[in-house]
């Protein structure tokens, strides 16, 4: 029993590790992404432009603008002169955030009244823009607090919990743990089974006493193993090379990686059950990967998506896993906090694996 499963797993690992090419194929994307991703995929709001339409012109408003310009986040400030211009700079992506200060700002502040300022943010770059908005808000609130002569009874201090300085690497690297394991795991399951079909070794397995369950397990476990190893490498690099804080437990990280691996393997086997050669399997994996990453909340917050996409995102294993990994890294997640995301992963795994098994039976019979 176990010995046959072990034979299958050993064969898969030998095939993966034997030739220098396949070894490189496993490790090169990990290294490359580790080196490039944190720099290229910048979600940080350094170097972005703030546009200000100052209708007031009083001393207070000028000081506020200067304070905004002094933050690291907005090295460039565009001064605007009309409401239309505000619209235009956002449309043309000249500014990430545009703030309009009302005519009576200085007067009302002097009188100790509350003031409403308008902010327009670029929803196309919603993750970055929201972070920028956060910065600007902080500055304005602090300014307001200082200006109001009588101290407010209680002051609201916005602090970004878990990532107080809004370091973008803290956000990117845990997500990268999730994204890269996806590639490795799909490659091992979807492509290798298609390859066996092409080379005829699949038939050789089918005439052996192995049952379809064994053959599937023989593909699933190596896939999970690869996902686990790749994920651990990136997690380790995140902690020791990029100094991302790790506030959860290693055990929980590994457990959730395995759950995620299982759900991926389900998709991988489903893709391979639907495709008859490596080319189709490759396209299938790609067709799964792109939406999985885009809808995962890595690029844009899931809450900002329309309902249909939010539903798709709910069955996207990546969206759940990203929340767990970020939680384990930054929020000190324990099992109880991770469970609301873990059970969907297991549910996805159960349904895709069951579906793949049925397809497998139908195709081999």
């Amino acid at each position, binding site marked *: 029993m176990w010995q046959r499963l072990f034979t299958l797993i050993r064969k898969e690992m030998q095939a993966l590790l*034997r030739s220098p090419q396949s070894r490189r194929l496993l490790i090169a994307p990990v290294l490359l992404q580790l080196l490039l991703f944190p720099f290229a995929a910048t979600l940080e709001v350094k170097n972005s432009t703030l546009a200000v339409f100052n209708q007031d012109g009083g001393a207070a408003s000028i000081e506020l603008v200067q304070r905004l310009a002094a933050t690291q986040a907005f090295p460039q400030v565009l001064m605007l002169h009309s409401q239309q211009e505000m619209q235009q700079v956002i449309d043309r992506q000249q500014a990430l955030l545009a703030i309009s200060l009302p005519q009576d700002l200085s007067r009302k502040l002097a009188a100790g009244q509350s003031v409403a300022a308008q902010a327009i943010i670029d929803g196309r770059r919603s993750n970055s823009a929201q972070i920028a908005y956060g910065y600007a808000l902080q500055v304005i609130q602090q300014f307001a607090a200082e200006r109001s002569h009588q101290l407010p009874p209680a002051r609201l201090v916005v602090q970004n919990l878990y990532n107080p300085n809004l370091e973008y690497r803290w956000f990117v690297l845990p997500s990268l743990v999730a994204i890269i394991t996806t590639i490795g795991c799909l490659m091992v399951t979807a492509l290798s089974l298609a390859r066996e079909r092409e080379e005829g*070794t699949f*038939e050789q397995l089918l*005439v*052996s*006493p192995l049952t379809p369950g064994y053959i599937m397990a023989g593909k699933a476990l190596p896939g999970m193993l690869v996902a686990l190893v790749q994920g651990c490498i990136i997690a380790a690099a995140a902690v020791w090379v990029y100094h991302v804080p790790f506030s959860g437990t290693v055990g929980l990280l590994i457990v959730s990686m395995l759950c995620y691996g299982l759900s991926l393997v389900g998709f991988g086997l489903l893709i391979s059950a639907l495709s008859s050669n490596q080319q189709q399997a490759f396209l299938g994996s790609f067709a799964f990967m792109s939406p999985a990453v885009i809808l995962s909340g890595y690029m844009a917050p899931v809450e900002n998506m329309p309902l249909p996409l939010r539903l798709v995102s709910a069955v996207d294993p990546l969206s759940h896993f990203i929340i767990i990994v970020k939680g384990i890294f930054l929020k000190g997640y324990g099992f109880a906090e991770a469970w609301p995301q873990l059970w969907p992963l297991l549910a996805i795994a159960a349904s895709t694996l069951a579906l793949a098994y049925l397809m497998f039976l139908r195709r081999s019979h």
Partner: protein
Amino acid sequence: MNPAMTASTDAIAIRLQAVSHTFAGRPALCELSADIRRGVITGLVGPDGAGKTTLMRLMAGLLKASAGSICVEGLDPVSAGDTLRLQLGYMPQKFGLYEDLTVLENLRLYADLRGVTGQARADSFERLLAFTDLARFTDRLAGKLSGGMKQKLGLACTLLGSPRILLLDEPCVGVDPISRRELWRMVSSLADGGMAVLWSTSYLDEAELCGEVLLMHEGRLQYSGSPQALMDSMQGRSMLLQDIVGNRRQVLQRALRSPAVIDGALQGHAVRLVLREAGVLPDLASLQAGPDASLQRVKPRLEDAFIDLLGGGPGGDSPLTEHMPPVRLPAGVDAEAVIVAEQLTRRFGDFVATDHVDFRIRRGEIFGLLGPNGAGKSTTFKMMCGLLPVSSGEARVMGLDLKKSASQARQQIGYMAQKFALYGNLSVAQNLGFFAGIYGLSGASQRAAVADMVRVFGLQPFLAMNAGELPLGFKQRLALSCALMHQPPLLFLDEPTSGVDPVSRREFWSHINGLVDKGVTVMVTTHFMDEAEYCDRIGLVYRGRMIAAGTPDALKTMVASAELPDPSMEDAFIALVERDDRQREAT
């Protein structure tokens, strides 16, 4: 210039001088010199991996030779490629037909590519469609054509623009004997019209028909000239041992031990032998072939000569015989019916691929399934080894129903696929370990089984090599050893020796004969007519039904007639298929 000289060079379409080619340091062709003349079909003959395709690609200007010179119509095929493209038709093994286009659309596409337009196009379409007999099928998708028709369409596309030289790379692979004969007739008529034709093949019986042959083995030219002259040189050395009483396999084994014999094969109930020297016969008594046995001279075949050129066939003794324990049937299994098909049927939608087929195979018997492509022999075969579920009827092996106890039944089966399904990127040792493992051998018993196979098949020097890089003959040995690792009582072989050189094929069958003597039962599908001769019984499958079954000799007797008193296996095959067609039309 000497007029005789020009005449002789004019007759030569392609001249090769000391051509060598290496791929990444590995020699593929070695110092090859030959002339290819107009007006005849020149056979480029040799097993897979002999260098046939490489040579054709060199002539077509698709590769540049590492050394030596090639002259096609007096020009260098690489530098004068543009000029030669219209004079040279090259049909690669898998001709690039577009399966989603119709026959006519494919022709139009290739006409556009070759610049055949206007009236010339209309004329050549008419001529080629009539020539290939495809005029009725112009609207059919190329993907829906049979193997033979696809090759005819490929040939038609190649002939657009009236080339003077035709290079055909294994045009008969996957084509049934009837279409094969038609294709041959077409190409012969082209050669008669003065075209230079190079026809590559791994079938030596096909090569016998060529006007000239280039016999290749492992990148070297073994012989060039007329096949008849080569066969004549074997005169008096080919013998048939007839009227054998007793086990003909053991008679063959004993004959091959005799120093007077260099090669031997089964042929129906008789044994065919090739002598080392004409007139020096083996001692009949020592063959123990029975009191009536007699040796008679027969016409030599090209295969006899080829094996002679390669230094003789392998011995008849398989080390497997000592290794494999005799098969003992478990209680309750009928020795007369270890493999049974009863009203076996498989439907794919409306299409009935296998239609109520019955047979039962005895312990220690070799049963062959023979039939044209798409006739249902693979479907039947796959159902018997559990690769396809049965629509209705029953398939049983060793008393086990493949529907109910598939896993147990499969443990009884050794299976060797057509293309030697091995893990090409794993080493030989890893492959052996893997196949031992999935059949449940572990630890010491696994090591012992692997070591035995390595010893029996001489795999020691290759253990660390990737299975994909093995020479074809060794790949076959490895595939067989993987299939036999768990000492199965039943062996399923799917076209086991297609493309393998005749010496390796002999060796393969000596192993199979050894296994059969131990009581292993073998079921085999084949295209090769001489492979069919090794079978004890043959089932001829056509249009999903078994139209004839019996010993090879019995099938031949069925079609023997006044004009054809001694039909070959291929004659029998064709006659029986045509007879069935006629009966079907009559009803």
